[in-house]
Structure formats: structure tokens, C-alpha cells
């Protein structure tokens, strides 16, 4: 046997500079992630730390006091009521229309010129700044019908509509075609097929997408600035008179120099964050439990 001199195959990683570069790149990617985690954790910790002290049943239900009032007085009850009413109205308007729009895109006209235009513009519409939606509803509704919770709901609805269309469209696409064929083969009309087979099959994903849209809408402030005219008294009638919402209160308290107002802002922030997280978790749960289309 000849003596084996010469090369020994090195099966370890690339040598030298290439390996170092690779290591640096990977490290940088992890650093990127850390750069994002740190502020997120800071914000959450701050919100919890500064907000938890003020949370109480009284805080969640009592009326909004003047800004000078100390933290122990009053609460954000009207704001929670307002958010509930306004976001609820917006959801009732935007979600069904969004689902129907997605049905149009997916089951009817999606591939034609009009369908592709609508789909494209729905995507573009998700990028319209929320403040523009507020100015829009101000121009087209508030000037005629005054400030109201409903106007705010219109603005939030316009924000939610393209988001619901897009996420519902994605879910409808996932429903396998053999399900539709099975329904057609039994003599169903297209409307029947869509409503009795496709929608129920996709409902998990649709609901999940709607929940996320609601979470986003609940946190929006800008569109409400010009539509509900933030007040401090509770208004259970969303169709007449100005109203308030949790983010609106946070915004108006954020620039206040009174510690009481600031404390209420932190408490309201904690409330808002908890609500948003709850919807997010609900969306995940629905997705996990309710999306299964075929064997």
C-alpha cells in the first residue's frame, strides 16, 4: 500500500476568511432580531409597570375626570364604551362587505380585468394612511352630519375593509377545488356552493383574519381625531354626538403634564395592549382549531 501523504480531506467548514464572513453574517442576523426584541420588551415592561397600578374595576368603569385629577380618581369607562361601540359598528360594516368582496375576487371575477384591478387596488388601499381615512370621512360625512361615533366607525371600517378582503381572499384560495366540484355535481348553484361549502370550509381563517383586523382598528387614533371629536363624557349613542375611545384618551393625555392624567394614559395603554393581544391570541386559536379542509 502506498504511503498516504498529501491531502487529507477536511470535512469541516470553509476555512479562514469565508468562514469568518459567514459567522459575522449569521451573528448580524441574530443581532437584528435582538435589536427588535429589546425595544418591544422595554415598551411592554413599561406599559405593564406603569399601568398596572391604576387598573381596577373603578378605573375601567368610572367617568373620565379632568386632567388635573390624581390617579386615584376617575377612570376610562366612557372610552372603553366608545371603543366597544365604534369598533363594533365598524366590524359589522366592514367584515361582511369584505367577505363578499373577497368572494367576488375568488369565485367570480378574479381573473378578469376588473377583478385584477379590484384586487390590486385593495392591496394598495391597505397602505392608505389612517389619517387620510379620517380626513375623508370628515369631508364626506362629518361636515354634513356632525361628529359622531358612527363617523368614526365609517373611518375605521374603511381601514378594515381592504384588510378583510385580502385575508379572506387568501383563505378562500386555500379551499380545495374538489370540494366545490362535489357541490356542483349535486346540482348546486354557484351561490349555494359558495355559501354552503366554501365559506364554512374557510370560516376558521376568515374569522381569524377578521379578529386581527379588529385588533388593528381598536388601536387606531388618527382616523378618530376628525370624526368623533374626543370628549370626556360617555355617549352610548354612536349615531349622534361626539364620542371617545381608548386610544383617543391616551393621545389627549400623553401631552398632559399632570401625573394623574399620565397615569391614566398608562392604564389605558395597558388596557388597549391587553385587548389587542387577546384578539391576536384568539385569532391564533381559531386558526389552529378550525382550519381543516380535506382528509
Amino acid at each position, binding site marked *: 500500500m502506498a504511503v498516504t501523504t498529501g491531502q487529507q480531506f477536511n470535512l469541516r467548514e470553509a476555512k479562514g476568511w469565508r468562514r469568518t464572513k459567514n459567522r459575522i453574517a449569521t451573528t448580524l442576523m441574530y443581532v437584528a432580531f435582538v435589536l427588535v426584541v429589546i425595544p*418591544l420588551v*422595554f415598551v411592554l415592561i413599561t406599559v405593564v409597570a406603569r399601568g398596572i397600578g391604576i387598573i381596577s374595576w373603578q378605573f375601567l368603569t368610572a367617568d373620565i375626570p379632568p386632567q388635573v385629577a390624581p390617579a386615584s380618581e376617575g377612570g376610562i369607562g366612557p372610552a372603553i364604551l366608545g371603543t366597544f361601540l365604534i369598533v363594533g359598528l365598524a366590524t359589522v360594516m366592514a367584515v361582511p362587505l369584505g367577505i363578499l368582496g373577497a368572494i367576488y375576487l375568488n369565485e367570480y371575477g378574479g381573473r378578469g380585468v376588473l377583478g385584477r384591478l379590484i384586487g390590486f387596488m385593495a392591496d394598495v388601499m391597505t397602505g*392608505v394612511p389612517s389619517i387620510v381615512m379620517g380626513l375623508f370621512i370628515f369631508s364626506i360625512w362629518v361636515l354634513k352630519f356632525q361628529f359622531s361615533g358612527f363617523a368614526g366607525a365609517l373611518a375605521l371600517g374603511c381601514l378594515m375593509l381592504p384588510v378583510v378582503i385580502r385575508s379572506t381572499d387568501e383563505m378562500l384560495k386555500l379551499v380545495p377545488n374538489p370540494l366545490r366540484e362535489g357541490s356542483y355535481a349535486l346540482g348546486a348553484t354557484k351561490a349555494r356552493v359558495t*355559501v354552503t361549502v366554501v365559506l364554512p370550509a374557510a370560516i376558521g381563517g376568515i374569522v381569524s383574519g377578521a379578529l386581527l383586523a379588529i385588533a388593528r382598528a381598536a388601536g387606531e387614533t388618527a382616523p378618530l381625531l376628525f370624526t368623533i371629536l374626543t370628549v370626556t363624557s360617555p355617549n352610548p349613542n354612536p349615531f349622534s354626538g361626539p364620542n371617545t375611545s381608548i386610544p383617543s384618551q*391616551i393621545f389627549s393625555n*400623553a401631552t398632559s403634564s399632570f401625573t394623574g392624567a399620565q397615569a391614566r394614559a398608562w392604564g389605558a395603554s395597558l388596557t388597549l395592549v391587553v385587548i389587542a393581544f387577546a384578539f391576536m391570541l384568539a385569532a391564533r386559536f381559531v386558526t389552529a382549531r378550525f382550519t381543516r379542509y380535506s382528509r
Partner: protein
Amino acid sequence: MSTVTQQVDPAVPAGSTRPLSERRPLGDRTFQAIALASGLLVLVILVLIAFSTTQQAAPWFKAEGWGIFAKTWNPPANQFGALSFIYGTAVTSLIAVVMAVPVSVGIALLLTEVVPYRWARPIVYVIDLLAVVPSVVWGLWGILVFVPWIAKIYGHIGSAVTGIPVLESLFGPPTSGASFFTCGIILAFMITPIVTSLSREVIATVPAIDKEGAYALGATRLEMIQGAVWPHSKGGIVGAVLLGLGRAMGETIAAALVIGSSAVITSHLFAPGDSMPAVIANQFPEASGTFRAALIGLGVLLFAFTIIINVIARAIVGRAAEQGSA
């Protein structure tokens, strides 16, 4: 019950009362009409936005003409030049993009190329958490916590660069916690989720064959990314960046709270400034007449800019997706 039939109806099975010949049921046609109307609503709303806001802003356009792009914004003196806000929007958005894009693309690469599947889920959760924090909470934290803290850092940097030519004009005094740069940082946090998730989608369309081919030639992961991922996803990532830019430009509340609300054009990034959405939010309640028209006009400009950017971005992302899967 049968509609017009010229032929005898063949065997009617039990359970079916419809003749073989009949027009499409009314319910079916109505449903299609409703669905179409809902889809058209998107186009209708976009057109209405353009028309109604422009109409409300018309007094401003008429009063200033091309002066809407003037430098001076002085409502008491009826001067409504928007340049400083356009400048502020541009600067803060650029800062946000410059900071967010490397981070977002890095995280996207981390998720698609580096971490094993098990660890990807928690990381995605974190990004989702980041996305769900409402902008007003970012603003509150920004102005009450972040601004005081960073004001000191700005102060140190400001005095450190005094005397150095370029750096001084960028980072020198006057410095303020609420400034262009602070706004840019907060905006960067806020646009990271969308740029990350879009970049992930784009990178996911890179054919596995190309990646495996690179590895098979003995490439390190970095080299594979440079050689196989980047050429394919270049276009799409540019689109994702543009979308992030659009989002940063339109962000209102956080900006309104931390930008400093000072309508100036200055190269000092640590100085207070203002941006289009921020000034609209801050000054609208007291505005009327031409003042209000000017603010709405800023909204029109903002709408126009973001629509253009979004159209370009979506077109790029769409084309990149087609090419990737072709």
C-alpha cells in the same frame, strides 16, 4: 311551474321539481351582484377619497397656487407653505427605512435560512407582537420614556461633534429629545413587522433548487444568500422596502408625539421638526377656513404620495412573485 320548454321534459327524478330548461335562479344572480358591488366598493371609496379631500382642500390650492410648496408655515399670518412638513416626512421616513430595512431583511433571512423550524414560530410570534402594539402606545412610551432618555445621548453626541464639519450639521446642536431622529427610530420599530413579513414572502419564492445548488458547490450560507437568494429576491425586497416607506410616511400618532412639532427645515437630525401627518393631527382641532383647507390639503398630498408608492411597490412585489414562481 315550468318556464318555456319546447321539448317534453325527460325523467324528473324524485326530489327535483325543476325542469331541465330554466333560467338561472334569481338568488344566484342576486348573490353575484352583491359580491360584485362589494368588490367595486374598494374602487368607489378610493375615488371618493381623492375627490372629497381635494374639494375640501381647494381653498388652499387656490390661495397659494404653487406656493403650497413654500417654506413658511405661519397660520396667523395666513401663510401655508408645506415644504417643511414634506421635508420632515421625507427625512423621518428615510431614517426609519435606513434603520428598519437591514434589521427586517436580517430577521427575514434568519427565519428562512438560519433557524430550524421549531424556533421559527416563537420568532414570528415576537414579530407579530411588535405589529400589534398600537401606534398611540408607541407614542406614549416615546414621549414619556424614550425622549427624556435619548435627549441626554443627543446632548453628548451633539457636543462631541461640535467643530467637525459634516457631522456637526447633521448631529450637532440644537438637540432635543423630540426630533427628526427620534421619530425615525420609533417609525423604524413600527414598520419592521411589515417589511419583515413581506421580505419573508419574497425570499420564500426563491426556488429551492438554486439554494441547494449553491450549497452543493460548497458555498457557505452567506455565499448562498449572496448568490442564490439575493438575485431572485432583489426586486421583491425593493417592493417591501417601498411599502415600509409608505407606511412610515403615513404614520401619524407616534410621529405627532415625538417629532417636536417645529415647522423648520434643517439638516440637524437631532433637532425638533414636523411632518405632514403630525401637523395635521396636532393642529386640526383649532383650524378653520383656509387653515383647515391647508391641513386637508396636506392630507391630499400624503394620499397622493402613498398611493404612488404603494402602486409601484405592489407592482414590483407582484412581478417579483411571478418571476420567482415561473
